[in-house]
């Protein structure tokens, strides 16, 4: 087992609990994903705002902070998407760990690294969700899904990261 020192500290100071704020933010994000972002279609797929936010959170605040947020955000998403409860949580937590690989490499102004991590995280998340859907009895055509859904979603998620990541970084800097 590896020995690690943990992630950077969470937001400190007086005011509301940062975790509660994060949960509320992810709740709103899940609602926005379900009702607004899902209308943005490119080659039949829509971007995944939750995935992009969770990965950005992990890169900006560390994996330890992002893991519970990924878990809760996944539950919100599953409830709204009609997916079995827990599937998105597991998928998002896996992507959070993936983001942890690059936490220390992120430079303050570099947005390409988060975009790269999101590009890696998208198929990882898809693998988790599709595996569980297959276990629940739904027919899954892996090759077709990879080409027709995961590939366009990956493009959209990368583009969305170029907007979401700098925005989240700016907001977190202001809060500091």
């Amino acid at each position, binding site marked *: 087992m590896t020995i690690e020192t943990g992630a950077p500290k969470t937001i400190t100071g007086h005011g509301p609990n940062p975790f509660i704020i994060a949960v509320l933010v992810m709740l709103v994000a899940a609602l926005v994903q379900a*009702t607004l972002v899902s209308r943005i279609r490119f080659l039949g797929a829509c971007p995944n705002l939750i995935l992009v936010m969770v990965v950005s959170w992990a890169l900006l605040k560390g*994996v*330890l902070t992002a893991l519970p947020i990924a878990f809760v955000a996944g539950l919100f998403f599953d409830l709204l998407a009609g997916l079995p409860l827990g599937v998105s949580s597991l998928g998002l937590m896996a992507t959070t760990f993936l983001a942890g690989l690059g936490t220390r490499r992120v430079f303050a102004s570099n947005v390409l690294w988060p975009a790269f991590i999101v590009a890696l995280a998208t198929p990882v998340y898809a693998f988790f969700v599709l595996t569980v*859907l297959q276990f629940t009895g739904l*027919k899954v055509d892996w090759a077709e899904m990879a080409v027709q859904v995961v590939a366009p979603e990956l493009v959209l998620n990368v583009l969305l990261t170029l907007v979401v990541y700098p925005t989240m970084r700016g907001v977190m800097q202001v809060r500091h």
Partner: protein
Amino acid sequence: MSRLSNRTLVFYILAAVGIALLVLSTSGFLAPVEGVMNQAARPFLITFSGIGRQAGNIATSLKELRTLRSTNRQLQTIVDTLTIDNLRLTEVETENQRLRELLRFAQLNPIYDVRGGQVVARVINKGPSNYLNSITIDLGSDHGIEAGMPVVTERGLVGRILKVGPRTSSVLLITDPSSGVQAMIQRSRELGVVNGQAGELPVMDYIPQGGDVTAGDVVITSGLGGNFPKNLVIGQVVEVNQKDYDMFQQGILRPTVDFDRLEFVLVITNFQPLPGQTDDPEPVG
């Protein structure tokens, strides 16, 4: 002796909880909790959906503005033609009135195989996941909704109920790759199975070689398998893929239902499978 890092420990704990939730959810034990959560989210979903619809309308209007001027000129020409046609149609109206009375008889004695009641449901959420083409409606088990019930609009087949909560339900659309509907060509009665395709138009598979199918044919449910009522319109064939070395032909369909603009749907609540046929909610495909 190695030591677990904080984040690995948190990951293991949350993953264990996640897997436990997954098992409980897929086995249906969490249905009441999911129902309560969905109920709580319902007003927000309705509000956000309204905002989304408005935003969509504005985007559509802006797009339409570009072509508005040329369309206006074309419409003016059409108006002139229609004015003349209108005079002719006034005469036809009298004849139409008599035909309507005959049609009313047909409506009161339908050959349509929907033998159950229908309830109107509002679409409150369009599936946000790319991996499951579904919608959420504002009716659930409290309203008599059950898994497997067919969902339609006046334009045709939408899908079937996949998951039911007390006040909301998920509908698996016919465009989902895991969906399969027993179907037939209305004109030639050729049988096949309509399967959804990821990111593409659905296809009608398993049409026999030599079967009579052409672009423009209307595809309806065949009623075989007992999962859907007979004669519900699914879509129109836009292209036929026929290769001599294949066992079957394939027709690409454009569904009659506009899945991007679904607002209200009908759930057929007491459709009964035909005798001797399976009532398994998972369609053949």
